[in-house]
């Protein structure tokens, strides 16, 4: 929405100001989800790969924002033009946010960018601990240039294939419900992660010679759970902020809409965590903090598309369903599909987003549905299928190209050593480093580690026993 501020300070100017300040604040909250993802993933990997997973999370943001500005946002708009009957293909218009932003074009771009980077950063959790960093950077570029941007292009903004004006929406007479991106953002990231985890292959030792899974515990439950709670905090920006209009141009306060969104976000999160806690206690004998954390996020994902559209009890039920399915779905991915999805991104972001979004018409609040439940359900299933098929196919192509160009995996030796050391030359938890030996290299003194010492002439003495 482009906003032209009139010279006289009327209600329109005030509503624009209020709404765009709100949008900026929620964007900062959504940006903070990057912190949550970084901690959540770092906690679920071994100490030798912590720096690498943090690098991948930072790469998603720092590379992604540049790519999404130069190309991704325009690609999204072009996909919307191409899949809407009656809209002309207008590349110059698609790049208009760069050339002619108006009063709010750059804020609108930033609002889109924080969602794009959320989708991109989900992938790293699935392919952690064994993927080549260069290949990952390539995937992150493709994710923010093409794979993700096509999704809001077809589903959001009133144009595109799945909108009520698009080819499919027009044919069915209803639009696709996915309010804040349960499928557009989260399922896209979760499925891209699943494809990546499959194509990169399981970590060494994840499956024994019989194909049975072997646990590789992460190094910090504290980081994983704190990351989960940071993510949940940012999620209020993600969901409630998508209700971007706080004050309409007519002066109406949108409190009821904001209230339904914040209530269903909160109830879905709570129900997801409770269901996962109960299921983990039944399955493993004791309630498990990591499953509970995953269930909390699965509940959030499940209601992300549904928050303004469903009743409060619908919000609770969506959260319960998603949370209860976390453990069995993850076991299915590992035990049946034999895919090493390290952080469980498929179940948390992928299947939870699909289920929660498909069920929106079943739990719809009064006045939400414009046609029969069946018609809306058909639209939801088609929408999930379109987003799912696009993401899987595009991800296969992108990971395939990355494999051909750079190779998807690090070597066995590098994996064994840990990616912190082999990919980045660092240790996330260094110990006993200080001044030992630092001054001895040039002075020719004995090095503290008894290692090779070079004299002034550059001749190595044996065992540090110099001169």
């Amino acid at each position, binding site marked *: 929405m482009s906003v032209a501020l009139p010279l006289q300070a009327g209600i329109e100017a005030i509503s624009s100001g209020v709404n765009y300040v709100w949008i900026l604040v929620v964007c900062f909250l959504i940006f903070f989800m990057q912190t949550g993802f970084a901690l959540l993933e770092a906690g679920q990997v071994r100490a030798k790969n912590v720096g690498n997973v943090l690098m991948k999370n930072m790469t998603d943001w720092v590379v992604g924002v540049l790519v999404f500005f130069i190309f991704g946002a325009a690609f999204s708009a072009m996909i919307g033009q191409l899949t809407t009957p009656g809209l002309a293909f207008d590349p110059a218009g698609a790049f208009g946010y760069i050339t002619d932003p108006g009063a709010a074009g750059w804020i609108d771009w930033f609002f889109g960018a924080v969602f794009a980077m959320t989708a991109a950063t989900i992938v790293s959790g699935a392919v952690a601990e064994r993927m080549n960093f260069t290949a990952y950077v390539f995937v992150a570029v493709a994710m923010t240039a093409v794979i993700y941007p096509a999704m809001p292009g077809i589903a959001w903004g009133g144009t595109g294939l799945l909108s009520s004006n698009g080819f499919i929406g027009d044919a069915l007479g209803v639009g696709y419900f996915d309010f804040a991106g349960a499928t557009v953002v989260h399922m896209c990231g979760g499925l891209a992660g699943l494809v990546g985890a499959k194509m990169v292959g399981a970590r060494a030792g994840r499956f024994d010679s019989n194909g049975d*899974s*072997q*646990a*590789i*515990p*992460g190094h910090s439950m504290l980081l994983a759970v704190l990351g989960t709670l940071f993510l949940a905090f940012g999620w209020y920006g993600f969901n409630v902020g998508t209700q971007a209009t706080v004050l309409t141009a007519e002066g109406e306060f949108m409190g009821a809409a904001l209230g339904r969104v914040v209530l269903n976000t909160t109830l879905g999160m709570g129900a997801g965590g409770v269901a996962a806690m109960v299921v*983990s206690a039944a*399955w*493993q004998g*004791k309630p*498990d903090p*990591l*499953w509970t954390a995953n269930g909390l996020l699965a509940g959030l994902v499940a209601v992300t598309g549904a928050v303004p559209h469903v009743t409060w009890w619908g919000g609770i039920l969506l959260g319960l369903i998603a949370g209860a399915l976390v*453990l069995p779905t*993850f*076991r299915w991915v*590992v035990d049946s599909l034999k895919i090493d999805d390290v952080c*469980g991104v498929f179940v948390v972001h992928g299947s939870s987003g699909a289920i929660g979004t498909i069920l929106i018409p079943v739990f719809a609040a009064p006045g939400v549905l414009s046609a029969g439940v069946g018609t809306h359900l058909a639209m939801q299933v088609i929408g999930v299928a379109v987003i799912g098929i696009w993401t899987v196919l595009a991800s296969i192509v992108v990971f395939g190209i990355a494999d051909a160009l750079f190779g998807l995996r690090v070597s066995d030796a590098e994996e064994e050593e840990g990616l912190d050391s082999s990919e980045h030359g660092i240790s996330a938890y260094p110990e006993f480093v200080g001044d030992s030996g630092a001054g001895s290299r040039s002075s020719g003194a004995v090095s503290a580690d008894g290692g090779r010492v070079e004299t002034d002439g550059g001749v190595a003495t044996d065992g540090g026993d110099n001169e």
Partner: protein
Amino acid sequence: MSDEIKLVMAYIRPDKLSDVKQGLAEVGAPSLTVTNVSGRGSQPAKTGQWRGEEYSVDLHQKVKIECVVADIPADEVAEAICAAAKTDEKGDGKVFVLPVDEAYQIRTGKTGPEAV
């Protein structure tokens, strides 16, 4: 009292450390070095859970105590540790007494029993 220097080396339950420190102080040997270690002995293996997969933990968290004595008899020190660390369950740990050839105090340059 004696010229002999002994190293009393004990492996105990982490939660018994404060009792053992108290016991050592009571026999007049409060100086010690403590290290976090993992070890295996008679204590049965535990089962851990990660994402619904069980794994066996047979190396248990223990605390290693090193206590070098000269004036205080090593057997008194060892018995003090045993008394303080005992729970009667498997995994209480072990105490070893080793001879020490020589001792140097870095600050003063003293050697032998005086340095301990």
